């Protein structure tokens, strides 16, 4: 290896290494990753261990508007005029998802938890509802409003007529006519039912009612004036102003019917919100990636970008320490086996073969099964997995170096074994050990992350890439970013280590093969 050129061996190495473009690029990226790891805790935009909502105030960010929803409400009267309404009865079907409050003709919705729910607004006999999603997946549309089209003018006694019913869904679909509504009702109300059943422990009492929800329910407020059949046929019976109320589940509306008398002042027939569907961000977890949070926030609303940065240090630490321990132990045992040979060699080689025959992950899991879960034990498990590879490499080089003339010369003049190993053999195998050290760090990071992911790392709140993946895996079906970004960080780091290791190998020892 070491040629007798005028250059020092290190400069020779540098000259060769510079030709490996990929490895050089990987090397500089790795330097960048190291610096990030070192600087990590100071350059994170947010504290990686606390929810961002707690930190908005100290950073001077006002997020209230994006987190709470506001909807304008107007009332529609029977003569078609639109008036502002007040003193609404407001109710959020699931208070664990959101709360509502009213002020000056608009309602304010504040999310509490996650999921889909409905907000019911009622005044007298008229009720509408809106659909509310908080950081939830798409849920089926719900029925939001009903409208009855009554006869325009006066009605005579004895007249029988049908009222035109119109229903509006949260996805702005209009269903017109009794039959159309009824055929669509099953799915629409079924969705409602699912929502109300998620509603924790209080459903039992409501259950019966929710089964009736599927019905279109007609009712006359004054039986002397008008009578109505269950399918909406109205019969005018006596003089006066009657009202027919129709309801499906909690949503209802009325229509005034004037029989042989003139219509008096209009009544409220519909409560119309400016939006029938509102989607909000949960202020406690899982914000989408945005300019404010580049990688989004996780299930505890911690900034993922900050956590990935802060995790660099710990992830690299696991990789380095475990490979370091494994390399030291492996090199020692390999030297023993290679230099002394005989029975030491055969025992160590046999054990190495057994360990090498096992897939790394199984070996590591077995170690963790003995030691128990925990970050320190993961480091140890990865080290155990690294040892046999180093034993094998070091033993091979020791066997070769032992036969070198300079080693034999040293032996013949009575130099101690210890000195020979330290001064003559160890330096000779350093290049090979260095190559494998770099290549193994990538593998160690992968293995450590896999163990963390399996839940064997103990603490999953730590900002460490594997632990972040483990913590995010339960929600990975709904949100991609809590798993995507830590994973990309792992891939980038490991690719760089592998490319760098490849380049190092090609420079130092082109004969080596993985």
């Amino acid at each position, binding site marked *: 290896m070491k040629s007798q050129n005028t250059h020092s061996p290190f400069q020779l190495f540098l000259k060769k290494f510079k030709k490996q473009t990929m490895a050089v690029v990987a090397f500089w990226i790795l330097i960048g990753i190291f610096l990030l790891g070192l600087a990590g805790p100071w350059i994170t935009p947010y504290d990686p261990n606390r929810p961002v909502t707690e930190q908005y105030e100290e950073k001077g960010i006002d997020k209230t508007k994006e987190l709470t929803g506001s909807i304008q409400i107007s009332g529609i009267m029977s003569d078609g005029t639109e008036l502002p309404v007040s003193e609404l009865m407001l109710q959020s079907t699931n208070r664990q998802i959101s709360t509502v409050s009213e002020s000056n003709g608009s309602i304010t919705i504040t999310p509490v938890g996650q999921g889909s729910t409905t907000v019911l607004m009622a005044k007298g006999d008229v009720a509408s509802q809106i659909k509310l999603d908080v950081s939830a997946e798409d849920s089926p549309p719900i029925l939001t409003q009903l409208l009855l089209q009554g006869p325009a003018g006066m009605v005579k006694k004895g007249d029988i007529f049908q009222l035109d019913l119109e229903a509006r869904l949260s996805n702005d679909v209009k269903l017109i006519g009794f039959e159309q509504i009824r055929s669509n009702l099953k799915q629409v109300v079924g969705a409602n039912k699912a929502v109300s059943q998620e509603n924790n422990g209080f459903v039992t009492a409501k259950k019966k009612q929710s089964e009736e929800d599927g019905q279109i329910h007609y009712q006359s407020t004054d039986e002397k004036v008008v009578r109505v059949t269950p399918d909406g046929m109205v019969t005018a019976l006596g003089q006066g102003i009657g009202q027919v109320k129709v309801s499906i589940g909690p949503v209802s509306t009325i229509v005034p019917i004037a029989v042989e008398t003139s219509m008096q002042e209009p009544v409220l027939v519909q409560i119309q919100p400016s939006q029938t569907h509102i989607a909000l961000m949960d202020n406690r977890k899982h914000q989408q990636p945005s300019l404010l949070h580049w990688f989004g926030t996780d299930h505890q609303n911690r900034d993922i970008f900050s956590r990935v940065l802060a995790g660099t240090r710990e992830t690299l630490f696991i990789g380095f320490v475990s490979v370091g321990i494994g390399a030291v132990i492996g090199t020692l045992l390999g030297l023993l086996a290679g230099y002394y040979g005989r029975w030491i060699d055969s025992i160590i080689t046999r054990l190495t073969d057994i360990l090498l025959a096992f897939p790394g992950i199984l070996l590591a899991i077995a170690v963790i099964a003995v030691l128990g879960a925990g970050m320190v034990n993961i480091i140890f498990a990865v080290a155990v997995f690294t040892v046999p590879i180093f034993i094998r490499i070091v033993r091979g080089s020791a066997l070769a170096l032992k036969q070198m003339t300079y080693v034999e010369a040293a032996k013949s003049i009575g130099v101690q074994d210890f000195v020979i190993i330290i001064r003559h053999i160890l330096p000779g195998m350093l290049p090979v050990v260095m190559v494998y050290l770099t290549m193994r760090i990538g593998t160690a990071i*992968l293995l450590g992350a896999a163990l963390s992911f399996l839940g064997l790392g103990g603490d999953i709140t730590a900002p460490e890439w594997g632990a972040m*993946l483990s913590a995010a895996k339960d929600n990975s*079906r709904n949100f991609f970013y809590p798993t995507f970004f830590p994973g990309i960080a792992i891939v980038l780091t490991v690719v760089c280590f592998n490319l760098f290791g490849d380049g190092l190998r090609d420079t130092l020892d082109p004969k080596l093969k993985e």
Partner: protein
Amino acid sequence: MARYIFGRILGMIPILVIISILSFLFVHLTPGDPIRIMYGAEMDMATYEKVKANLGFHDPLYVQYGRYLQQILSGDFGVSYKTKTNVSDEIGKRFLYTLGLTFAAMFWALIIGLVVGIYSAARRKSIWDRIGIISTTTIISIPEFWFGLMLMQMFAVQLGWFPTSGSGTFAHLLLPSITLGFGVSAIIARFTRSSVLEVLQEDFVRTAKAKGQRESVIIWTHVLRNALIPVITMTGLQFGFLLGGAVVVEQVFSWPGLGSYLIDSVLARDYPAMQALILLFSVQFLIVNLLVDISYSLVNPQIRYE
């Protein structure tokens, strides 16, 4: 040949003994009292001693080991602490799932790996070769559980083409097997490439070229036959690794195989299950390695074992 196989099998016996001792000592090595784990921590001393005596924990270790050996040789791996079911039944139920997943993964790995490997070797130093090398390095660096999660997110959640987890149909098998096979395909591709490159330097290839045969003919008739022998060995070894290494992927896709059983039992400190699985994986490994070695010497008569 027969002598070689016989020798190999004899050579496995000491390893098997070591593994059985390790898996037996497992219960004694791990922190925590197995009896308390099995029957709950609240237990008065008298019952505790009785249970301990019943289980034979008072006997000297070698007596206990003898009993353990007798049990496992008759196929009895004890009763799970956690589910109170027979461990051997549970393993029997799950083994086929892991095997099926492994075969499917190997199928993808071979298809992708061989095509990419042969192509990059045949077009050496072309842009495609470069891309092949870089992408195999990248693929090896991708954590398979993360890749699985991303596949699941894309094809199962966003597009809804496949179920996210579970087992039973071909659709269930597709995503986990692709996840598992993807990483292996990169290893096989690299290996195939270097193996084909090596054979391309042989004399008989030069002769064929001198005769003026077309390159594709040379690759298909002369090179592949020789280059694939080490690839077959490699594939066998990878198959062995996959059988045990499916742990993570099985966990991601809730695949009811041996790997997820292992993780469940480690997390629940279910000693009998852990013991049985570690033993099983080791034996499985030894057998796969043996088969690989035998097949290697069968395919390539030039290889002679001492």
